[in-house]
């Protein structure tokens, strides 16, 4: 693949980055009476790969479409590099958009699809032809230039859509769940390609997905959204390891939540009466601690009586690199464990927690299930 410099594309002043920064200031979006996005402040850095993650209906796509200008905010401002673009029409924003369903035009060939943005910019024919060829090479579709979208596979179509979006040299590239129509393997490959292309071109990307694995894999930072609000912003590690709420914790990655109450800074009594002791991080004041949270990979299975609590192995799924267990405690609570050990269904085992967090309440809705 060629680099941006090879293509001879000229960028703005800052040579290290071709992107721009995006700021939302108290941005609100409404559809009639329905508030799709509550007042939101957000800063996306120049050159950053920023992901909006959340279940469907959380407002992430709405926010993305607002960045593109397809939707006008009700209140608040959107700044691109300190320039207020809130009321600028989408065709004047000069940014790229990649759609979930590719949105290629079936009446045009791939080359004509890709050339469209340049035609709108009234570039001369020779330039268009050259850039189209170069961009198609960039996405490894040079052989498909004269084909119609209907003749290509889904993955190829999405690469064509990507080429169409980047050919206009956009400082900001928006992705709306671009990989959700593709099969699992292709998804992984293509998301890496997208990430690589973004870093090579040095542009800012905002990426919408409901797939937390995808988000954790490619993002510089993630904003987890829920019901029209941003629940947490952070690097993938922050989001995964230090979720600010059970909601985020529940949506990103797998987890076990146990009801009870904190009895001290290092002890938590379950509803069943059992007390778990150890180092815990409190995401709420100890007095309000009602939920104990732990990731499956931080939990280990030990001999009965040797752990913090005992239970019976209820479900076993072998995943190759590790095995996932569902252990049911005496009072009927399920604990999810991922570990490399040998336990059979029905075995009585001990459970040991190593990393625990205490929250004030359970997620009101099971976000993950709702979406799957």
């Amino acid at each position: 693949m060629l680099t941006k410099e090879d293509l001879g594309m000229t960028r703005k002043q800052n040579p290290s980055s071709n992107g721009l920064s995006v700021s939302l200031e108290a941005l609100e979006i409404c559809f009639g009476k329905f508030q799709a996005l509550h007042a939101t402040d957000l800063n996306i850095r120049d050159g950053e790969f920023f992901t909006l993650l959340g279940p469907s209906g959380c407002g992430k796509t709405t926010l993305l479409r607002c960045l593109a200008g397809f939707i006008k905010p009700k209140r608040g401002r959107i700044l691109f590099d300190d320039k207020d673009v809130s009321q600028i029409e989408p065709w004047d924003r000069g940014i790229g958009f990649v759609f979930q369903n590719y949105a290629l035009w079936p009446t045009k060939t791939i080359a004509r699809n890709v050339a469209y943005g340049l035609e709108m910019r009234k570039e001369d024919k020779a330039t268009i032809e050259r850039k189209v060829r170069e961009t198609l090479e960039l996405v490894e579709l040079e052989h498909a230039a004269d084909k119609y979208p209907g003749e290509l596979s889904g993955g190829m179509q999405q690469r064509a859509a990507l080429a169409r979006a980047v050919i206009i040299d956009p400082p900001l590239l928006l992705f709306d769940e671009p990989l959700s129509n593709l099969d699992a393997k292709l998804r992984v490959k293509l998301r890496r390609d997208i990430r690589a292309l973004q870093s090579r071109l040095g542009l800012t990307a905002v990426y919408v997905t409901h797939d937390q694995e995808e988000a954790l894999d490619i993002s510089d930072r993630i904003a987890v959204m829920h019901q029209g609000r941003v629940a947490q912003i952070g690097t993938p590690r922050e989001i995964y390891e230090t979720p600010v709420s059970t909601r985020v914790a529940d949506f990103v990655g797998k987890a076990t939540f146990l009801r009870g109450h904190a009895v001290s800074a290092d002890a938590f009594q379950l509803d069943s009466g059992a007390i778990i002791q150890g180092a815990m991080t409190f995401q709420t004041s100890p007095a309000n601690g009602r939920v104990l949270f732990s990731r499956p990979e931080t939990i280990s299975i030990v001999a009965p009586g040797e752990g913090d609590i005992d239970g019976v192995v209820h479900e076993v799924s072998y995943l190759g690199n590790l095995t996932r267990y569902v252990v049911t405690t005496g009072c009927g609570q399920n604990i999810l464990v991922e570990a490399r050990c040998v336990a059979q269904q029905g075995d009585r085992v001990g459970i040991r927690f190593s990393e625990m967090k205490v929250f004030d309440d359970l997620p009101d809705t099971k976000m993950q299930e709702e979406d799957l």
Partner: protein
Amino acid sequence: MRNSWKIFSLFCLAGAILLVAVPQIWIVVSAFRQDGGAFTIQLRQGEMMLVSEDVQRFIPRTDGQEDITLERPDGFAASVSNKGDNRIVFKTSEPLTIDPSSAGSRLVLNSDNASFVVEQTVPMSIFGTPTAPVFEARPVDGAVEITHAARSFIRFHDRALSFSFGNFKEFLSRSVYLEAIKNSLIVTIASTVLASIVAVPLAWLVARYSFYGRSMLIALITMASISPPFLGAYVWRMLLGSNGLLTAALGLDWTIVGLHGVIWVIIWLIYPLIFLMSLDSFSSIDPTLRESALNLGATRRRAFFNVEIPTSLPGVLTGLYMAAMAAFSDFGTPFIISLDLVILPKLVYTQFLNETGGNVSIASTGSIIMLIIAMMFLAMQRVVLAGRSFASVTSRKSELDRPGTALKWLIYGFGAIVIGFAFTPHVFVAITSFLEWRAGTVTTVMTLANYSTLFTEQLNAVWVSLSTAFAATMLCMVFGLSIAYVIVRKRFRIIGPALNGLVMTPYIIPGTVFAIGFILAFNQGPIVLTGTWFILVLSYFVRMLPFSLKTSEAALYQIHPAVEDAAMSLGATPVRVFLGIVVPMMLSGAITGLTLVFLHSATELSSTILLYRPPWTPMSAVIFQNTISPGANFGYAAAMSVLMMVILYVPLAYITCSRKKTLV
């Protein structure tokens, strides 16, 4: 920039008001207006009596007196007393004055709330020397004394109009009108259901399988939808009537004349609509949807019912709706095929266009009721389609399956039957165009005279038909595509539904009624168009726009809005997005509608016969001229029909061939 669509919609709305609402407003007005009623008295040999059957809105009071006294529910009363010597005195509860416009056998008598037209009819003698019958009026103390002929009927008609729902009450309470509504619904529903049983499975088979002669089949079915007006009904009656050629040949005691015949003929008129629209939507189903359903373990049948039917439903339903409307508003078929079947379009037609003085109020009320029923059909279609998601954008073109031998022959057999029935009228007409017709019946004498007259006299008609139909089609394309876009995508709150309603209205107004509105609107005042080429074009345009609009809408429903966003994000303004991206994508679907627009415009008759004026005589009018009277030269009409079919098949074949690319 976003408002440019709003401005365009307002422009279209203004146009629709000018071309639909203004010309047709008279229907609405007369539906809600009722005159004051009428009654007739008969005078013979000095005796006076009330004709009890012809008393409208008045209630006769029988109080045993010599005088005839009548009252109206609003309290108005009228009485007639016989003074002898061929004199009567007419008196009402309000003082009457004689209007100076009274003349001859027609008096106009006014009071505060009534305006009576009093007319005398004297039985005419065929052999007598005519003398003008006596009919004079003079005022007597607020009443009027009328001197009349010795033997006469005198009709008192209060023409003062008032707004009321009276016409609707009358329409919905009298058995003959209720019967008409019932029959119309039976015909519409039965023929649409039966036609869809024929058309939808066939469309699905054609969309799914490749077989030799596939595009030929599509072309033939499209061609079958062109049929010179009334032709189908005429021919079916000639073949399957009591004395029909087939009935006689088979020795059957059977006739197609009746309700069953109406349904039968209409099926073959409307099934191409359903077939073509269904074919379009079956063909544009994203095959991945079906494949993924199959991959997920669904059986073929479940994939069909769970995936294909729901995704193609908008197109199929649009076809069904268009077909139902065509069946609902068809008046020619019941007129020819049923002797005494009362059915709404026939009722409306005969009440409007009536040599014995029709009942415009009832006809208008009937039109409004048809309009309401049509709106209910539209609402049903909307409700079913509501919330239906858009089909996916970039579909891989369907790979056509190769049918197995049994299936292949099933398709051939099915297709052959359908084509056979649909083309029976055409073939029959083609044959009879080479035969001599005498006194309205065909003989077995071969002749080319029909054609030689045609080519020496009426070729101008070809040009008129083609140019008007072409211009109308172009207008329908421009406005059909753009109005569909406004309605589906922009969803302006009031303008959208108003525009939709107005544009669809002409589809269910009987053509003749529509034409009268056009004459009323454009024969005087600022825009005078009657008798011109333009009025034919405008009439075809307005009447056919619903075809174009509905097919464009169906096409648009299959285009995901993201394709527009994609273009916009690449710097295209909404206008460029529409022209450069949306229109080309819609065209492949809308072309079906435009083909129909062209064909229907070129064969349109019902409004043409009232609007055309030489030299702008289209082919359909020539055909009509030669079928109308019982002694007409039908052979000449048959020859013109053949010429018409041949001329229309050329562009059609072209379109069908160019469609192959998108369909196959």
